């Protein structure tokens, strides 16, 4: 069975700092990769996704992620965070053959002014 690891559980950054959240997965076959975000009091929403093609994908609100197949990684980045980026971020993997997501445990990002 596939698994997803998010090594950063809680990250605190000042506004304008750069962000990188790690995500590694274990699955030998083709995968679809996702980052979801959950703002305080809101439901999960999609930030960005990778299915195929260019391994550098851009999402909403200035976020991007890079798929590195050899490292089984899909790290999330943002050059300059804002206070409004305070949220919980989840990496998720979907095997190419199945319609179900396996999520990591999440990273809580706190951005201070």
């Amino acid at each position, binding site marked *: 069975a596939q698994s997803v690891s998010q090594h950063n559980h809680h990250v605190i950054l000042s506004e304008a700092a750069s962000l990188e959240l790690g995500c590694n997965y274990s699955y030998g076959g083709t995968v679809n990769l996702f980052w979801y975000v959950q703002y305080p009091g809101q439901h*999960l929403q*999609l930030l960005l996704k990778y299915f195929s093609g260019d391994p550098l994908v851009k999402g909403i609100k200035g976020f991007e992620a890079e798929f590195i197949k050899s490292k089984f990684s899909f790290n999330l980045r943002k050059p300059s965070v804002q206070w409004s980026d305070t949220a919980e971020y*989840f990496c998720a993997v979907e095997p190419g053959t199945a319609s179900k997501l396996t*999520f990591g445990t*999440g990273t809580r990002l706190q951005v201070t002014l």
Partner: protein
Amino acid sequence: GAGVSQTPSNKVTEKGKYVELRCDPISGHTALYWYRQSLGQGPEFLIYFQGTGAADDSGLPNDRFFAVRPEGSVSTLKIQRTERGDSAVYLCASSFDGGSNEQYFGPGTRLTVT
């Protein structure tokens, strides 16, 4: 348009009781998913419907859990003989056609078993 809705938003029940949780997917979405999110964890897959049928129920933890989607739209997750360990947020998601289409999540039902 309207998103995925779930009712109730909160449910408190006593150990041993039966509960039903309802999900209303986005209109026109044929695929529907249930996930469970325990405190400090990411969502965990329970079951996936394509239309009226359960295409994958491999995530249901045991036979106390059952879900239906009789008309291919609204789905109900049913939990019998609830246990304290069932306390979690139960999330529903829908997508246009399953496969690689984006899953849209509802706000969840927070279930507390006392």
